[in-house]
């Protein structure tokens, strides 16, 4: 918001949208760790993911937004809920959700935040990015399969290894 306010062409509607969605995401994110019910926590996480998708849409990154919905809401969270419901699906409050060493999470989270803020400031500083440049899906796929083909393959191999590992762990016979 600060970066946009400093530049000459401010898209007011986009900034208001960003603020509202960001506030909702923070509330939902706090709810994830605060909730006394696993399924409620998971649903709050869905809200956070959906908020992230909405932010991508505001940045005109439609392909990334749709990927966010397909992968995180459509697959990850549903498998997550599926697992939770198969094992410990209770309606109502649960008392043993808090780990004894939960306070340790605070410095770790602050450290993460600090390092991310540092990296972002170091990389971009006060640079102004061009007002949203539309990247079409075709251009995106061209850049994945031409200059970034090797990293794409490397990622595919990592995923393949994870899939094979999952099968090995799951098969008992």
């Amino acid at each position, binding site marked *: 918001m600060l970066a946009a306010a400093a530049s000459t062409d401010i898209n007011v509607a986009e900034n208001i949208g960003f603020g509202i969605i960001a506030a909702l995401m923070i509330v939902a994110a706090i709810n994830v760790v605060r909730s006394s019910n696993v*399924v409620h926590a998971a649903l709050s996480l869905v809200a956070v993911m959906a908020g992230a998708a909405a932010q991508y849409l505001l940045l005109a990154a439609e392909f990334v937004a749709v990927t966010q*919905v397909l992968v995180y*809401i459509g697959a990850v969270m549903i498998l997550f*809920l599926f697992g939770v419901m198969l094992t410990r699906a209770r309606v*109502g409050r649960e008392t043993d959700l808090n780990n004894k060493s939960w306070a340790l999470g605070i410095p770790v989270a602050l450290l993460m935040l600090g390092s991310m803020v540092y990296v972002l400031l170091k990389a971009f500083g006060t640079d102004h990015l061009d007002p949203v440049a539309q990247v079409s899906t075709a251009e995106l796929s061209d850049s994945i399969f031409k200059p970034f083909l090797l990293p794409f393959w490397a990622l595919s191999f990592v995923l393949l290894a994870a899939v094979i590992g999952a099968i090995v762990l799951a098969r008992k016979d």
Partner: protein
Amino acid sequence: MFAVDLPYWAQSLLRVLGGTVAVLLPAGTIVYLFLFKMMSFMQSRLGPMEAGPYGSMQLFAEVGKWLQKEDIQPAKADKRIFKMAPLIVLVSTFLLVAVVPFGPDAYFTNFDAGVFYMLAVSSISTLGILIAGWSSANKYSLLGGLRAAGQLIAYELPMVLAVLGVVIQAETMNMQTIVLRQNAGAMFGWNGLGNPYILTQFVGFVIFMIAVQAELTQAPFDMPIAESELVSGYMTEYSGFRFLIFFIAEFATAGVFALIASVLFLGGWGVPFSWFGWHGVNDVANWMNIAGPLIMFTKMMVLTFLMMWVRFSYPRFREDQLQRFAWKVLIPVALLNIMVTAVLKVVF
């Protein structure tokens, strides 16, 4: 290309109204024609006959009945989520219809990643079904919800893979462009019929329709709502207008998926462009904005007829048969289809 330049709010209002019609009209037609009448005729009975001529007003009577029923929630249910679940399922349907093109200018959005978007938002309904089963605090509901989630995850994959064949052939994920490619296309130089992808992607079409049937949890894939063992699964505890929402969502989604299938495989709103000497989207006459939705509706009726025919005819799959069919038959065949399509695309 609109003759009148509407302000943004009026366009948005028109889109919302159009979306509501595009979801509710197919749902109502499918329920009356197929669920009330066709199923009855197949079972040698007349179906509803009292309300209106041939029982055509029966739908309004049913909706009125559901709306005035008491809104019951189980005492131990998770009330907030219990109320939210049917809405999530219905929202998924409304989001789906947003990418379906109905004419050269009659579309809600002309979205570059349309096919991808369609696959993404169709998976949101799984979330609604899963939490509907959980929040009812009923073991039948939970079992039904879990079965539904397992089934929808399994059949999501063949659906994605079946659609990929069309995307490879059309070289785009934009639904509008897919329609144009089919109608402006030609088969071996003969363009009298365009090039509907059902001919080249017949395998993909069959897999897509089977996957849709499973996504809708219709017979023979109705294990999650098996009424004889699970008492309707995740819907057991729902009554009144919350049940009505689930009911509308089921048939509206059937209609929207049929619309999507007709866009992907049957040429969508178009007629073969060579009939009128059109070459691209700019040549298409304005009356296609009226004729297009009608053509789409006709194609949707044909496809939903097939879906309902299967629904009323086949017995239920067992859970293990259902999973094995998805993972060991549909997915390998779909992968093979992608491979063959890609090879042929490169060769020709």
